[in-house]
């Protein structure tokens, strides 16, 4: 049966998904999936309405009453730590007539008061104040029935808070599967855990969320050309194939992928991303297993993308072209979909809480100068992503098949010590083929 029959709707959506289903294993993907209103509508329903979406890091809201406002699709959520220390997330919508009750992106509040009619909620969501309650609503009215609506699911993994719009969603642990082992390479690098370096940068890019994450789940191949300017400046290695080395690992059935890069053979790079000696020593005792440490000490560049739209990038990096020593940086980001061919990038810089102060400052500079809104790496990525999306949305361009055939026929690495399916080379699209298998599975479900 053709997929167009299975998915229903217009033939346009059906055709694109059918092309994706037929072409995926041969590494052929229709450009149209990257900028199409019907694809986007289905992604909202089938992907974003039931996936675990990153909301915040707990270090953004360390004290009772601290809150940040975050989105899943077009839904605004107040992510808030209650007076009891517990983190909750509520739809930012007054239960009476729907006005926003939170009037800032971040802050500290014991209560949220609706400016429309004055309904007032405690930061644990309970409705505690209704003006002229008895006169207006009478005896039968119970405030307990009108609390702020909690997000259907909220769970934490090592300080990373994820929300899910579906009450039927599997647990976050189950969703992450073996990807959590790789997350721990970052989250358990220190006993103290991570802290954000201020609020996230936010900027809008005319592209598709999938195009953005591709770069952070698999595409080290683009480094040669997209980031050639940094190679010319001596920030990135001159070896044209340097991004090829490393293991690319995916978690089958989950869609998650990671890249663990040690560097070219024989390259004189400091161990453990180039983190300060004291941080390296502490990590030896904070990792949950010996294998974590064995992998981490050989790692210089590390990326994870969790299905569908959370990425983490943790490279060894020189903070500028003259600085003598590398200083690694860590960024989290959400590829927040705004519409077909349009996203908001939400990009955080983070560092270990117990890192030396001099290092925190350098790591922040390293982040701001290379990634995020002005980052000298990322600004070229966003330029290119926007033109790919523009072509993908064109009437002829949408029918073109993209090539995802890199690395076909390469056998998995049987000696890789971590979980998942590992390939011994980074010039491969294995992580992407795995990502789109999961994508297709959900889109056709």
């Amino acid at each position: 049966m053709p997929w167009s029959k299975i998915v229903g709707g217009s033939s346009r959506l059906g055709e694109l998904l059918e092309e994706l289903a037929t072409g995926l294993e041969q590494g052929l993907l229709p450009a149209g999936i990257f900028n199409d209103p019907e694809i986007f509508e289905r992604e909202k329903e089938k992907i974003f309405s039931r996936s675990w979406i990153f909301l915040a890091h707990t270090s953004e809201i360390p004290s009772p009453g601290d809150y940040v406002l975050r989105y899943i699709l077009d839904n605004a959520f107040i992510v808030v730590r209650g007076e009891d220390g517990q983190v909750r997330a509520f739809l930012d919508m007054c239960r009476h007539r729907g006005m926003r009750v939170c009037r800032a992106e971040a802050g500290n509040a014991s209560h949220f008061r609706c400016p429309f009619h004055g309904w007032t909620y405690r930061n644990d969501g309970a409705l505690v104040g209704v003006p002229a309650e008895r006169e207006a609503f009478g005896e039968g009215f119970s405030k307990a029935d009108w609390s702020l609506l909690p997000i259907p699911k909220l769970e934490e993994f090592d300080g990373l808070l994820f929300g899910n719009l579906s009450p039927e969603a599997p647990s976050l642990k189950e969703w992450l599967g073996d990807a959590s082992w790789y997350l721990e390479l970052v989250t358990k690098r220190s006993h103290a855990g991570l802290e954000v370096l201020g609020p996230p940068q936010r900027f809008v890019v005319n592209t598709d969320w999938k195009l953005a994450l591709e770069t952070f789940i698999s595409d080290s191949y683009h480094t040669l050309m997209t980031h050639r300017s940094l190679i010319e400046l001596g920030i990135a290695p001159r070896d044209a194939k340097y991004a090829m080395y490393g293991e690319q690992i995916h978690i089958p059935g989950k869609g998650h992928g990671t890249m663990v890069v040690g560097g070219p053979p024989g390259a004189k790079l400091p161990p453990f991303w180039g983190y300060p000696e004291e941080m390296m020593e502490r990590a030896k005792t904070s990792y949950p297993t010996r294998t974590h440490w064995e992998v981490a000490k050989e790692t210089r560049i590390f990326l994870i993308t969790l299905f569908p739209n959370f990425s983490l990038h943790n490279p060894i990096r020189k903070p500028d072209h003259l600085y003598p020593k590398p200083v690694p940086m860590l960024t989290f980001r959400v590829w927040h979909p705004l519409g077909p061919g349009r996203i908001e990038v939400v990009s955080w810089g983070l560092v270990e809480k117990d890192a030396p102060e001099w290092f925190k400052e350098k790591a922040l500079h390293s982040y701001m100068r290379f990634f995020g809104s002005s980052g000298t790496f990322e600004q070229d990525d966003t330029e290119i992503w926007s033109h790919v999306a523009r072509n993908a949305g064109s009437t002829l361009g949408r029918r073109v098949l993209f090539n995802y055939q890199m690395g076909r026929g390469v056998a998995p690495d049987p000696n890789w010590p971590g979980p998942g399916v590992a390939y011994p080379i980074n010039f491969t699209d294995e992580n992407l083929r795995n990502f789109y298998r999961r994508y297709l599975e959900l889109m056709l479900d």
Partner: protein
Amino acid sequence: MNLTQEILDFLYGEAELLDEGRYREWLDLLTEDILYRVPVRLTRERLPQGGHSGISEQMFHLDEDRTSLEMRVARLETGFAWAEDPPSRLRHFVTNVRIGEPRHTPLGEEVEVRSYVLVFRSRWDQPDFTFLSAERHDTLRKQNGSWKLAKRLVILDHSTLPTHNLSFFL
């Protein structure tokens, strides 16, 4: 020439260099100890005393010193800086210039200058464009008879940037 005219000439001349992509000449307008910052702006509740709020003291879109600015300019000259190749068509509209009292410092005569800037950006053949709007808090210092930029704080009017990168200067 009076101080007002000197400062206006500096700001307008600087805008011309930025709009024409003459970044080496722009670097010559900066002191060696330049501090150039564009903090992240957040939507926050009104402060009881009024005035600006939500200006992050920790996270910036740009937090640059002389070396990192030179790195960004050198990058634009490599021939592989795709974010600005083809270059954006930029126009810095500088208005509402307010000039403080000049003062003598160990480093030379300095003056605080506030201005508004509206930056128009257009790329490729696309008819749409983006605007960035901001207030600039500058410190200018007179060196060998010429004004140089010693410090700039750019307070954006945007919480979420409406443009896909900051591959240029404000």
